[in-house]
């Protein structure tokens, strides 16, 4: 740590105003404040309320919470590849993980380089401090796309979302929509063939740097995902093994969203550190389960209510996306309404719209739009209640 501190102290004079490398000021500043808590304190004479941790530290906790799901996602990429090649028995656990690591790493790099690159340029241009929000989005984005997605599409979508979902609104903390979901929505509507479809989209099929297998008979991958089958009315129900696999996460899907267990570990970290709100998280699950139960009781779907919660991106969205402190509701009562409606809309889209087998992304984006309205209603209600109490 001391060595790092020394490096930053040595570099600093060069990037100050008038220094040789002034153009890189925001870059150095960004890395420095990421590694060390800044030593400025609030000015005397003004009233400030400060938490013990700043937003860069919050972001690092979220990244830590995402790591179990990411690591499991890498393993699952290798597992699916070996499964499709029919070589499950002869492949070791580490070989699968190594293959998945090689498949996922370029996506993480592209996401961070493009996203942070734009953030740094904008910060330098507007002469502001570098904003840290992208640290989390940058790791979530590779986790919510299929492993076969071409890198140039990812780069384009990241650039679109950082510019149009974030910087236009004023940067971190000002955005209305979750930038990671905007990235996914852009990809989903721009390149539907690369984002949805049968299992060949979700399973990596070629060797990477000598690791893994080339899948020679892609026919094995022509099956649809459970949600895809349900959308086309050809779903015949699960056996116990599939449900078990869906909870452990050994099913084809976006990189980081398959394992409910890994996501649960992340959820515990988020709740324990107090970053995510348990109210939002719980009410998303309750809303989804209740809607699933209702629609199944009405005979509109074959999927059981608990299966909705473990399939697709529901758990991932509920834990990491719906609870995003910037785009979700801030009033305590509003969090319940916000979460319940996300669960409701997500399952509704899944069941009633055959064009969209997965509704979580659309549900969260829609409710992002309404979050401030929900807050407004509750704030107004509180104001009028207190006014009544005061005049009594």
């Amino acid at each position, binding site marked *: 740590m001391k060595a790092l501190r020394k490096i930053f102290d040595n570099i600093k004079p060069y990037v100050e105003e008038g220094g040789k490398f002034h153009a890189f000021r925001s870059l150095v500043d960004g890395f420095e404040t990421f590694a060390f808590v800044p030593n400025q304190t609030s000015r005397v004479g003004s009233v400030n309320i400060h938490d013990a941790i700043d937003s860069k530290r919050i972001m690092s906790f979220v990244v830590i919470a995402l790591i179990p799901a990411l690591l499991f996602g890498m393993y699952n990429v290798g597992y699916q590849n070996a499964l499709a090649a029919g070589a499950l028995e002869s492949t070791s656990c580490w070989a699968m993980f190594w293959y998945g690591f090689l498949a996922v790493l370029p996506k993480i790099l592209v996401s961070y380089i493009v996203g942070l690159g734009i953030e740094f340029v904008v910060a330098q241009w507007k002469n502001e401090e570098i904003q840290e929000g992208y640290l989390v989005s940058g790791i979530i984005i590779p986790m919510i796309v299929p492993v076969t997605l*071409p890198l*140039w*599409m990812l780069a384009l979508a990241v650039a679109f979302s950082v510019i*149009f979902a974030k910087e236009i609104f004023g940067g971190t903390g000002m955005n209305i929509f979750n930038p990671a979901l905007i990235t996914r929505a*852009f990809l989903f*509507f*721009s*390149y*539907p*063939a*690369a984002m949805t479809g049968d299992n060949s989209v979700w399973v990596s099929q070629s060797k990477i740097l000598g690791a893994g297998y080339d899948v020679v008979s892609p026919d094995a991958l022509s099956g649809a995902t459970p949600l895809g089958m349900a959308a086309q009315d050809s779903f015949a129900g699960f056996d116990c093994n599939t449900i078990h696999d869906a909870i452990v996460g050994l099913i084809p899907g976006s990189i980081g969203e398959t394992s409910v267990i890994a996501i649960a570990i992340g959820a515990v970290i988020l709740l324990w550190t107090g970053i995510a709100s348990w109210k939002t998280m719980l009410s998303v699950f309750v809303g989804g389960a209740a809607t699933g139960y209702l629609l199944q009781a009405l005979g509109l779907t074959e999927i059981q209510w608990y299966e909705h919660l473990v399939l697709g991106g529901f758990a991932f969205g509920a834990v990491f996306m719906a609870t995003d402190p910037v785009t979700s509701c801030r009033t305590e009562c509003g969090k319940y309404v916000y979460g319940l409606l996300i669960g409701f809309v997500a399952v509704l889209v899944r069941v009633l719209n055959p064009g969209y087998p997965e509704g979580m992304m659309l549900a969260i984006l829609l409710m992002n739009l309404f979050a401030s309205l929900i807050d407004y209603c509750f704030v107004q209600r509180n104001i009028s209640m207190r006014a009544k109490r005061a005049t009594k």
Partner: protein
Amino acid sequence: MSKLFSEENKAAFSNPLNLNNPIAVQVLGICSALAVTSQLKPAIVMGLSVTVITAFSNVIISLIRKSIPNRIRIIVQLVVVATLVTIVSQLLKAYVYDVSVQLSVYVGLIITNCILMGRLEAFAMQNKPWPSLLDGIGNGLGYAWVLVVVGFVRELFGFGTLFGYNVIPKFLFDCGYTNNGMMVMPAMSLIIVGCVIWAHRAYNKEEK
């Protein structure tokens, strides 16, 4: 001659092209700008139709501006515009049928285009025919160039073509390039119009 192209008349023509652009500055006529711009050809035809209609309706209203009773002026304006729109619509059907099918209801909806009524009320009712003609052409072309820019971007990236001809080389598709499906949707054209407005304001920063 010098009187015909005086400073004021020149301004009546050139202002709507840039500093007082109906789409980029006044943000009028957005619905049709989003609806017809998925390809370049309908965008150009639409832009020209609106130019012709604004020009002629401006002249006609300006000619009869003193005899229009003030209380029913909107109805009179509507009758003039509706007549011109019907003529243009019939001409399009006769000579460029495929484009008129693509434009579908949006030719008829030129009647309700805010730019037209705005120019009649704000300019033609107070000015002589010649400046009104220039103003009409200027506003129509100001509308048209934004449509052409949006149509160009949307057709290039959404279909990989321009005027229906493939312009994206085949080896790019072989490398894995794909047309952007979102460009075809109206949602994306709203974002592109936003970008045009953004660029326009940034470019004209000092003028305001």
